[in-house]
């Protein structure tokens, strides 16, 4: 029952969120913006387009990507092991990269290499964040992490504030927002056309879009478990993180992949480790 709800509701909420995203972005740029339901119109339209494929393998990789994105969100909703969830999420991202690499288009190839860089940037940070959660709660399972916070009335945000900051950066990379929109080149910056998505069209692009919605829901879920002791505060935290993301997206310029790796691996890691070291002293 929970699984069905997760599979059905996640893309609906994710789609609405990306509609709100486009509306707020337009308002920040002094425009009126598209209707909130715009992402759904886009996806339905894409399903009605002619099927254009460069090779048959790319279909397999797109479906793999969607499947693993769904699986990672379902595992999260079922309260499973966070390490397994991150692993499944990474496999999904890897499938996307393989799909883009299977086509000999320079835009797709460069986009795929940049996507790998993005995965390299956020994966260690996510893992360290999870280690931090383990140090506090003594478990990698989402269920246990949530239960610990409810029984002790001790939100993770109080013990892991710096890790939460780094989670915001992970959110930016995973949502492919500026300054880290290097793989798919969002908005008007089209120097590599659409990066990893260049060679996918019609229904397959629609599947990628739906997979994004699942991923978005998963990452926002990871933000929510920082304040799992109170549902309303958790939702407010997610909303605040989401709006902060949009503002960051609109006020920053794109960075190179080197700057992204530096900000993630050097600054992100150091900030995370300071938090974890402080935690080990306080315990």
């Amino acid at each position, binding site marked *: 029952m929970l699984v069905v709800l997760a599979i059905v509701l996640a893309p609906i909420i994710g789609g609405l969120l990306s509609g709100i995203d*486009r509306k707020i972005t*337009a308002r920040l*740029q*002094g*425009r*009126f*913006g*598209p*209707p909130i339901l*715009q992402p*759904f*119109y*886009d996806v*339905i*339209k894409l*399903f*009605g*387009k*002619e*099927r*254009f494929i460069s090779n048959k393998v790319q279909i397999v990789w797109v479906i793999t990507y969607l499947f693993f994105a769904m699986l990672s969100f379902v595992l999260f909703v079922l309260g499973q092991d966070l390490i397994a969830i991150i692993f499944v999420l990474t496999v999904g991202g890897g499938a996307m990269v393989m799909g883009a690499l299977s086509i000999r288009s320079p835009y797709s190839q460069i986009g795929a290499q940049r996507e790998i860089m993005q995965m390299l940037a956020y994966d260690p940070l996510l893992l360290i964040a999870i280690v931090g959660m383990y140090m506090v709660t003594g478990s990698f399972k989402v269920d246990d992490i949530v239960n610990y916070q409810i029984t002790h009335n001790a939100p993770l945000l109080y013990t892991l504030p710096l890790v939460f900051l780094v989670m915001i950066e992970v959110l930016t990379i995973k949502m492919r927002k500026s300054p880290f929109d290097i793989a798919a080149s969002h908005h*008007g910056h*089209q120097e590599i*056309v*659409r990066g990893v*998505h*260049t*060679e*996918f*069209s*019609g229904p397959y*692009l629609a599947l990628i879009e739906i997979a994004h919605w699942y991923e978005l829901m998963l990452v926002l879920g990871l933000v929510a478990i920082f304040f799992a002791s109170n549902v309303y505060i958790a939702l407010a935290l997610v909303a605040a993180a989401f709006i902060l993301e949009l503002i960051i997206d609109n006020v920053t310029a794109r960075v190179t992949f080197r700057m992204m790796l530096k900000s993630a691996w050097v600054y992100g890691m150091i900030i995370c480790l300071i938090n974890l070291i402080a935690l080990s002293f306080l315990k």
Partner: protein
Amino acid sequence: MSLLNTSRAKSPWVVHYDCGSCNGCDIEVLACLTPLYDVERFGILNIGNPKHADVLLVTGTVNPRNERVLRNVYEQMPEPKVVVAIGACACTGGIFADCYNVVQGVDKIIPVDVYVPGCAARPEVIIDGVVLGIQKFEEKAAKMNSGNVKK
């Protein structure tokens, strides 16, 4: 089916190909994206990738050197698709029509659905042209489903 047609009408993604325009029409095309006209209100996005696009906007005079590129961009777009020729040069060759190296109009190379006149075409007229093109999606889709797609 009607939901699909509504979605088609509400989300036309645009790719813009400049065949060798003086940049007048190109600037007006980009002006449509600015806060003053904001075509994203209607779901129109400048997508920059023919494989994702529904509407091809062509500006400038076609010549024998770039007709191959134009045809290539057109053929990479999945059906249903609409071509809008923007400006006098794209419609007929404009004042350059008599030049030895100018093709008299985009429609000599690829099928054109909407002609937007003007030198340079105004942003309001370009938006009108795209809206006219959107109305053609339904018959194009019917043609696509019946299997006789004109290539």
